[in-house]
């Protein structure tokens, strides 16, 4: 049962991701990416991480992707424009080939490397190995020697992003 679910979600994630990069319409890409995130959320559930799955849907799919969608609609760009003739004539086919080769190589390398590490089986005793507890996550996140500093550092990160977004995107005055 779990194996079947894994394959379904994995296939879904791969196919939607491929479609994201294969789409000419950015709007469709965003939508497909949301689907891909959904598949990943499913995998998170399988990995005993329901809280992360929920966050994935709410924050990633719900907030970040909507931001993308918003910009796509703001700029009113339904379709990718054709390549400029100068580039379409000369550089593109070779560039595409190189790109494809490089990505395939990277994929091959990663798969080969990761398949060499030996099958790691997850612990079977759910009581001992449960990582689904929100309490555990919460107390670890805010513990002094846990992720408290990372949490605070994130606040600066968001502040910087906020200032940056405002100063870059606002109209000249």
């Amino acid at each position: 049962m779990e194996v079947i679910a894994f394959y379904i979600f994995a296939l879904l994630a791969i196919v939607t991701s491929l479609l994201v990069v294969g789409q000419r319409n950015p709007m469709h890409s965003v939508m497909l990416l949301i689907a891909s995130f959904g598949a990943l959320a499913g995998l998170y559930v399988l990995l005993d991480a329901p809280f992360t799955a929920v966050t994935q849907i709410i924050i990633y799919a719900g907030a970040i992707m909507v931001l993308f969608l918003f910009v796509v609609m703001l700029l009113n760009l339904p379709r990718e424009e054709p390549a400029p003739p100068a580039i379409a004539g000369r550089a593109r086919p070779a560039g595409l080939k190189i790109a494809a080769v490089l990505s395939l190589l990277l994929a091959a390398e990663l798969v080969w490397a990761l398949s060499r590490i030996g099958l790691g089986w997850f612990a079977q005793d759910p009581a001992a190995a449960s990582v689904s507890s929100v309490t555990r996550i919460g107390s670890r996140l805010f513990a002094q020697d846990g992720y408290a500093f990372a949490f605070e550092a994130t606040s600066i990160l968001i502040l910087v992003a906020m200032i940056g977004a405002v100063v870059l995107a606002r109209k000249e005055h």
Partner: protein
Amino acid sequence: MVPLNYYLILSGILFAIGTSGVFLRRNLITVMLSIEIMLNAVNLTFVAVGRYLGTVDGQIITFFVMTVAAAEAAVGLALVIALFRHRETLSPDAFTALKW
């Protein structure tokens, strides 16, 4: 049961798909979406490894990655808008004034 390296291989494949998007797409927004795919692939590794080691740290790191992704998306989209203002296009090939 599904072993850990199935998840790791899946994440590797997703990561590679993300990288290919950078070359294939001639739209800056889609290129940014490819980066999101890559970050999600990494997230999958974190969660899977966390589950394998029996620690919640993997999930917690995921939250930080999401935050970073959000911050990057905000700045990146602001830059996209700024670029679009200068030149009414989002093709990466259009922005080659700085070179050599």
